[in-house]
């Protein structure tokens, strides 16, 4: 075999492997989604939304977990978004390349990559131990800590995309800096900033580990954020690991719900970003 044929052979072999690996990735995604749909669709019915999580061995729904998840997530976004937006504003508009701003960026990356279970341990020590009981608020704070770095970095990136001329034009009309930022820069960057918040919601929707030590679970209907609270991820964890068929079926239904929501939000952010890119 001459050199030329050998090189062609190596090339074809490696490129074939490249195609196979991509096919593998797509196959695994398809496998997971098909399993979810097959196992989940059968378990989805109206009582899922009207009945409470059942004791072992009987049928029931996920109503309390759905409401709990909704409340905890909503509070987490309300707590985390302003912090992320303001801190991101500081980095993009005031801090820029100063040493302090660079350190905050570094710290933010640490927070972004910190294992979520560590955040659970932190909030357990911060809130659950001093208060003496698990609570929905503790769960919200834990999730808010995951929201902050996501919102912060998208806010900063989006604000940096706003042309400096717009700021200068507004400043030339006599607008003070805070009005320039809040009335001009935010308005120009709003799509990107909303995208960041949706991405953050998508990320915390399926987060289980930080809720295990904070909100825990509650078998009953509860809208009291000051007490332990049912939520979808922890229900999935407990029900899927259990030996009871009814529970496992509910776990699959909840898994399908969560995945649909998360993937839907991810696709929505793509559409938003693409449409704002064209505008």
């Amino acid at each position, binding site marked *: 075999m001459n050199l030329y044929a050998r090189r062609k052979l190596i090339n074809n072999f490696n*490129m074939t*492997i490249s195609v196979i690996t991509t096919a593998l990735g797509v196959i695994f995604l398809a496998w997971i989604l098909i399993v979810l749909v097959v196992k989940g669709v059968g378990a989805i019915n109206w009582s899922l939304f009207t009945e409470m999580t059942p004791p072992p061995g009987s049928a029931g729904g996920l109503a309390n977990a759905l409401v709990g998840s909704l409340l905890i997530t909503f509070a987490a976004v309300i707590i985390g978004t302003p912090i992320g937006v303001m*801190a991101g504003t500081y980095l993009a508009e005031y801090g820029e390349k100063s040493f302090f701003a660079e350190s905050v960026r570094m710290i933010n990356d640490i927070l972004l990559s910190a294992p*979520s279970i*560590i955040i659970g341990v932190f909030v357990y020590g911060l809130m659950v131990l001093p208060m003496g009981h698990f609570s929905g608020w503790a769960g919200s704070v834990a999730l808010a800590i995951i929201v902050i770095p996501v919102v912060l970095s998208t806010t900063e990136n989006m604000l940096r995309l706003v042309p400096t001329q717009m700021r200068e034009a507004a400043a030339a009309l006599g607008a003070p*800096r805070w009005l320039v930022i809040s009335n001009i820069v935010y308005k120009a960057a709003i799509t990107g900033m909303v995208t960041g918040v949706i991405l953050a919601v998508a990320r915390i929707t*399926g987060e289980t580990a930080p809720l295990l030590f904070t909100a825990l679970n509650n078998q009953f209907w509860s809208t009291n954020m000051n007490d332990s609270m049912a939520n979808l991820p922890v229900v999935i964890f407990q029900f899927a690991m259990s030996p009871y068929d009814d529970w496992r079926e509910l776990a699959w239904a909840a898994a399908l719900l*969560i995945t649909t929501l998360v993937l839907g939000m991810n696709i929505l952010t793509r559409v938003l970003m693409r449409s704002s890119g064209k505008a």
Partner: protein
Amino acid sequence: MSSTRASTLDDANNASPINRSKLSFALGDVAFKYSALFFALVVLAIVVGIFVMLVVQSMPAWQAFGAGFITGDVWDPVREQYGAWPSLIGTLVAAAIAMLIGLPVSFGIAIFISELAPEWLKRPIGTAVELLAAVPSIIYGMWGLFFFAPFFAAYIQPGLVAVLGPLPLFGTLFQMPSLGGSSGVSVMTAGIVLAIMTIPFMASVMRDVFQIVPESLKESAYAVGATQWEVVWNVVLPYTKTGVMGGVMLGLGRAVGETMAVTFIIGNASKLGTSLLEPGSTIAAKLANEFNEADGLQMDSLVAMGLILFVITFIFLVLSKLMLMSLAASQEGMKT
């Protein structure tokens, strides 16, 4: 401005509306700037708070076992004897398996997306890979426990044992476990599922850094007759190797800290097995399983393991930052 001035002319010695609005503008500026600064400090405080909390809460464990806590291989709540070694090694081994599988696969995917795929296929494949990254980890856990692990035990495990088991030294890693071999719950399956979870992250970082290679560099290589593979291996990869390593470190950080998927699949054994096909444990899985039922020294020891985990992910993050930064720096150098 001029209209404001005209309206206040009637009341000539009363210029206060302008002054007042100037004052409120200035106050607003100060208030806005410092509240932005305050929230930036909050971010700082959270991370410092996490570290301090972990150190303070784990103090009793460090006092009881000293540095030997890291290498202690007994985890026995009855005798109040705790050591991090089995979980620490489980964490590192599962992550290593994830990287051994995930690195070549994500490299292949990145090559496919950036070099091979026709234009119309690039976006859908890229999107599919990124959606794989968005699936919550607990879903990977359920799928892994109920579908992948049994599949692995039935079709892949016997092959691994038959082919790799008889090898000297290396073979001990692939002995059929004495118990629970049929469920497929093991360090190996956890590592494979971790690989599937980290591939999207590594593949998209690699794709992004591959795209910064100047077209003219690649075209010159093609012009002298290089094959696609030779362009990737000899032009693209040397140009981007620090970026690729940065992506790998990012994936490694995720693999080490991943909790829910691993908790489902690894089997949560407290002892360190010799075979990869036996159940094991990782720090994150140990925390998820025992934290809520623990108190006293067991709780402190769990937090101490959390501290170790935090430090490990911190190291991986810093390494990945340094590598991505040196890639950016070398790019700056090439431009000038």
